[in-house]
């Protein structure tokens, strides 16, 4: 009934700790220049006030402004390198992805900020996620032309 998987802002500690640590002050939401971060309410009242990202609406553009303003250590405030972020891992649904259906599409590949590392095109045709490099920012999920998105970021588990 309630949403339980949330994509946390970059630098978030693991989920079970994040729930305890974040004091829900909303500073990460305030500083985000893209308004990527929203706060939980009806989606799951138990997580009331916790910040998360709805990648399909607005992904994280990895500007790295939010970790340093966090007062509670819920976001690692020393994190500056966007390549070291790990919010989740993108997964391609090969049954709906246009490239796998035989059309030509490279929307996710072209927009991935960890360019040509997190997403690779095999034979210049089929996108594959390289889990080691994918930071989980959700830009690919956001730009995918298929509805619903054929590439979805799965938030990290504990």
């Amino acid at each position: 009934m309630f949403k339980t998987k949330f994509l946390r802002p970059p630098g978030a500690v693991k989920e079970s700790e994040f729930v305890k640590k974040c004091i829900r002050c909303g500073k990460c939401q305030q500083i985000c220049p893209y308004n990527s971060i929203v706060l939980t309410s009806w989606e799951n009242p138990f997580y009331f006030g916790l910040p998360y990202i709805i990648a399909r609406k607005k992904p994280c553009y990895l500007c790295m402004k939010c970790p340093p303003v966090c007062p509670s250590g819920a976001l690692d405030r020393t994190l500056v390198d966007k390549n070291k972020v790990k919010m989740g891992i993108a997964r391609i649904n090969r049954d709906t992805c246009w490239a796998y259906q035989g059309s030509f599409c490279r929307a996710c590949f072209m927009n991935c900020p960890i360019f040509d590392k997190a997403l690779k095109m095999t034979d210049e045709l089929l996108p594959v996620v390289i889990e080691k490099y994918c930071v989980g920012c959700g830009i690919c999920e956001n730009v995918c032309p298929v509805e619903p998105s054929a590439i979805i970021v799965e938030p990290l588990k504990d």
Partner: protein
Amino acid sequence: MKDFFKGKFTLTRRLFQIGTFLFFLAVYYTSHKQSFLLGTFYSFKLGPIHIVDPFIYLTYLGRNLLKADLFVWTVTGFLIPLLIAFLFGRVFCSWICPYNFLYEILDFLKTHLFRKKPLIYFEASPKSKKVWLALALALGIFIPPFPYYILMPGLLSVLLHQLVLHLYSFILFSLLLILMVLFVDLFFKKRIWCKFICPTGLILGMARWKGGLRIIKRKDLTCKECALCSFECPLGLTPHLGNHLEDCYNCGRCVDICKGLRKKENPLDFKFL
């Protein structure tokens, strides 16, 4: 409450309250462009210092115990409200808290529009307040979202920010919580929420030092026992009996009323040290 602005302290206080509101609005409209001033009443960022609500921070420490992030600027910030409360009493409640401001506006309208007696009278002993505070801390430690449901100043300022961002689903949710509390508060004898329930207010009240800023009734000047001050006290206390100290949040309303009565002889006054 009959007059909203009349009196020296009341006028200053209203300017403070309106100023706080405008200040937060300014912070929210500029928060994308600067990181010097950020936050809500849960936790406010002033340069490197994160001023944190004592109740929120205590439950945070309890929830994380050994794993708590003892960031030096947050720990400093946690002590600031306690220090202010130690010296000046619960001035946060009367001079800054947006919930108090909202309530005072409604209370003002209520006296002018309805003139009804409260439906339910309720008083709590100091001991039961301590028991409730301990319970609230325990609930906050074991149920992480609990403190955020009952923190009115925090809810209101977050609500304001969501208005700026046009995130209406969150607004509806927290508006419901705030209305519930207001509903309770308006029907009970004055301010059950602020006097007995709000954990932040209770903690600030306990941090108060007896020699700090307080209202006194001077013995050398005669009191007419008109009890106007007690009618006007937003917390429903009885300053004319001189037994109001414990819950009083130093708003100065009673002093203003008393000073307005007679120019020279006014037994009620602020005292510091």
